[in-house]
């Protein structure tokens, strides 16, 4: 469970997040949606402690984030930031095993690491050197690493997975694969918070959607409630139509640019 | 080549007394040892020991300021003669600590230092009489040099250029070996407004207006001869450049302040005054 009260973040004169209140519930897949510059990644960085809020407080599992010991926190919460290059020739398996850093038992967890790789359909990459992987392959390996960090057994202790655009480099099959893994984590009791760009994938996998614009949450709730044609049109400055996804019960969004 | 050096070293080692093995780290020191006739005891020299030619064939212990303790010790010396500014200090201290006598000789650019060096080397190698004779001869030469110099106001103005090639040319100001030599030769340094060496600039050369340009033989060679040297910006506009008055002497002879100091001063004075066209001035 993550909670934020009166959260603001200002850089010089620009207010990137403005007095925002939110609660991310355990056992749910929560997606943060919004146009570029809406403050999605900033919000995620604030919630995971990478950025310090200008005002407001964040609570993780009921305790203010600042009071958490870094290592304890790392056992309960894994964060996947946006893509960054790895400068040294680690193998994919070695990178995944870094997920066990907070426990100090990386040496004995190879089987578990391979299982994490299997969950992201990248077991065959285990012995590849990460500097030779494609963007999508590296993203799957990094995803496996954060999975290994908090584990995937059913939990009741408020574990949390925070992903910043985890599927930006993936092909459709792997996009669905990754989001399915994230949703399964939520089904097992984990708090899952994901920044996404693809409205239809969000509609398909999220239990709860936070729609952001200009640093504020303009709507939140189940995808069917939040994703109306008017609201999507207004937030994203497009003309939108909503139908029903023929493959599942989720709403399906079609958009075009408004006439000038 | 290396085997030759080793063979020579062995030959010298056999020739000299077992107890008398000298390492010299200074061109003027080496020259003094030869002048005193003590060269049989010399087993190794530094890279500045280029005169006499035989010295250059001895094993080299490196640059006088970058000596190696073990390198010196490997020559099994009984006496190490170095310049006051030879080093590194630690290396020489280590050699001393191991029980080898290290004598540091003054190497300022003065007649006193030159005489002192001859005297000390002479007493260290047991040639005090020869040293006294050498000093007397040096004084005689210097006396002749100063007597043959004309009145100070008519003495030629000399610009000393130090170069090692690569287009880098330095001009000596006051308190340099060249400045002292020019004075001993009865001439005037054309540059007196700074101490030490400064890079040659066209305007400064013209302002100095030298009657003669003085260089070392190696310097002239590295500059590519008189013609190339005079192509340096500014030099053509000086009286020396116009009349192509360039004097060159061997490096160690001119600047070493060794036992040939008197002769060098004498010869320099003669050459400077004998430069073509200068007499009419």
């Amino acid at each position, binding site marked *: 469970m993550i909670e934020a009260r009166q959260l603001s973040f200002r850089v010089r004169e620009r207010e990137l997040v403005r007095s925002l209140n939110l609660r991310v519930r355990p056992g749910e897949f929560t997606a943060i949606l919004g146009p570029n510059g809406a403050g999605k990644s900033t919000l995620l960085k604030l919630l*995971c402690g990478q950025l310090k809020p200008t005002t407001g407080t964040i609570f993780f599992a009921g305790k203010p984030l600042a009071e958490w010991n870094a290592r304890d926190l790392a056992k309960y919460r894994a964060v996947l930031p946006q893509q*960054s*290059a790895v400068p040294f020739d680690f193998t994919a398996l070695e990178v995944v095993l870094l997920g066990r850093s907070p426990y*100090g038992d990386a040496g004995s967890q190879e089987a578990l690491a391979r299982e994490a790789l299997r969950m992201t359909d990248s077991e065959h990459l285990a012995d590849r050197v990460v500097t030779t992987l494609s963007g999508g392959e590296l993203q799957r390996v990094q995803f496996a690493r954060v999975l290994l960090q908090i584990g995937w057994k059913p939990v009741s202790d408020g574990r949390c997975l925070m992903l910043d655009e985890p599927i930006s480099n993936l092909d459709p099959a792997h996009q669905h694969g990754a989001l399915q893994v994230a949703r399964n984590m939520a089904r097992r009791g984990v708090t899952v918070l994901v920044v996404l760009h693809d409205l239809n994938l969000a509609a398909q996998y999220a239990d709860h959607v936070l729609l952001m614009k200009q640093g504020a949450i303009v709507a939140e709730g189940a995808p069917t409630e939040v994703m109306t044609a008017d609201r999507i049109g207004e937030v994203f400055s497009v003309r939108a139509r909503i139908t029903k996804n023929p493959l599942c019960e989720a709403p399906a969004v079609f958009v075009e640019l408004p006439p000038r | 080549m290396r085997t030759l050096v080793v063979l020579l070293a062995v030959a010298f080692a056999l020739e000299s007394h077992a107890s008398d093995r000298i390492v010299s780290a200074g061109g003027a020191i080496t020259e003094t040892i030869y002048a005193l006739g003590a060269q049989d005891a010399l087993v*190794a020299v530094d890279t500045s020991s280029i005169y006499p030619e035989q010295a250059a064939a001895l094993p080299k212990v490196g640059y006088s300021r970058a000596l*190696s303790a073990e390198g010196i010790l*490997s020559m099994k010396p009984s006496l190490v003669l170095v310049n006051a500014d030879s080093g590194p200090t630690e*290396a020489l201290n280590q050699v001393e600590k191991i029980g080898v006598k290290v004598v540091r000789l003054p190497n300022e650019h003065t007649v006193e230092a030159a005489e002192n060096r001859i005297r000390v080397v002479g007493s260290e190698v047991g040639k005090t009489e020869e040293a006294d004779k050498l000093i007397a001869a040096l004084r005689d030469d210097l006396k002749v040099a100063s007597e043959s110099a004309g009145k100070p106001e008519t003495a030629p103005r000399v610009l000393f250029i130090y170069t090692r090639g690569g287009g880098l040319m330095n001009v000596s100001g006051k308190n340099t070996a060249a400045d002292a030599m020019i004075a001993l030769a009865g001439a005037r340094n054309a540059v007196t407004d700074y101490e030490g060496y400064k890079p040659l600039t066209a305007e400064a050369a013209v302002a100095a207006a030298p009657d003669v340009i003085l260089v070392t033989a190696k310097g002239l060679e590295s500059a590519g001869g008189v013609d190339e040297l005079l192509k340096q910006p500014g030099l053509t506009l000086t009286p020396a450049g116009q009349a192509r008055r360039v004097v060159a002497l061997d490096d160690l002879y001119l600047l070493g302040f060794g036992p040939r100091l008197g002769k060098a001063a004498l010869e320099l004075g003669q050459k400077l005054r004998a430069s073509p066209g200068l007499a009419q001035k």
Partner: protein
Amino acid sequence: MVVAALIVAAIGSVIVGLSLGAVRIPPGEILSILWGKLTGAAASGTHDAVLWHLRAPRVVLGLMVGAGLSVAGALMQGLFRNPLADPSLIGVSSGAALGAVFSIVLGGVLLPTLPFLHHAGFLPMAAFAGALGVTLFIQRLANTSGYTAVATLLLAGVAVNALVGAVIGFATFLATDAQLRTLSFWTLGSLGAADWKIVGIALPFCLGLVTLAPLFAGALNALSLGEAEAAHLGYAVERIKGLIIFLTAAGVGVCVAYTGIIGFVGLVVPHLVRLMIGPDHRWLIPGSALLGASLLVLADTTARVIVAPAEMPIGILTAAFGAPFFLGMLLRQRRKALWS
């Protein structure tokens, strides 16, 4: 396995370093001299003195400096997330040299009356301060983006090296101290000053660096993923960065204070170790310490022997091997598009 081979190599380098030199000492005599030292027999003879007061401290200093520079290189590369971060290339060694020169000028010319300036520990402390200053400066430069761009790092190094070169040139021009006047000592390095006293002063610094560095192996592995990633994995990144900077500056500072700038060691050695056993810092750090110690002792032995009885500046040798390495790595990084 590889580590065992590296230990053997280090022992071998010590044997070679003790055996070879301008003075020829037969192996049997070396053993008997060393045995004499162990049993406390009285020292006598030139060979004994050469071995015990010239070669032995030099070999020990070589081991320490080789290990120190290599571990400092490995730490710095992990910290800056860039395999080209080498103390000599990015200006940290120059900073240390500046500190050392400053302390000598201060101690010898400006303030000869202040007793603390003549304390044996002042020189390495000043060098440490210089190294720390440059590292902090470069870290501040690097801090703006998540990882350190090669260009930023190397350009900063060029600037610092040029600045320090000018200041050292000026100081050597001013100073009368014989050691200062040999500019080549600072630019090309030499182990020629080694004696047991210097070994004694440098030992705690180098030993501290080499024994404490492995404590940061896990953090450096995590840091390879990025600073944010390392923080999310539970590491107190800012504190760890501070400690690593402090540690590398201390190691580089003391090495430079007594042996000048020996370039490329911190670049080449960790790179070779990565080729042998991979980038995992848990092995990279001890591996670099061992290989660096061996290679520097061998390089110094070569420098002592190759033009005997003269000596070649060791920096010429390390640069001859290191510079082509560096160019190769630069090309490789360019291809990987990390150049930005």
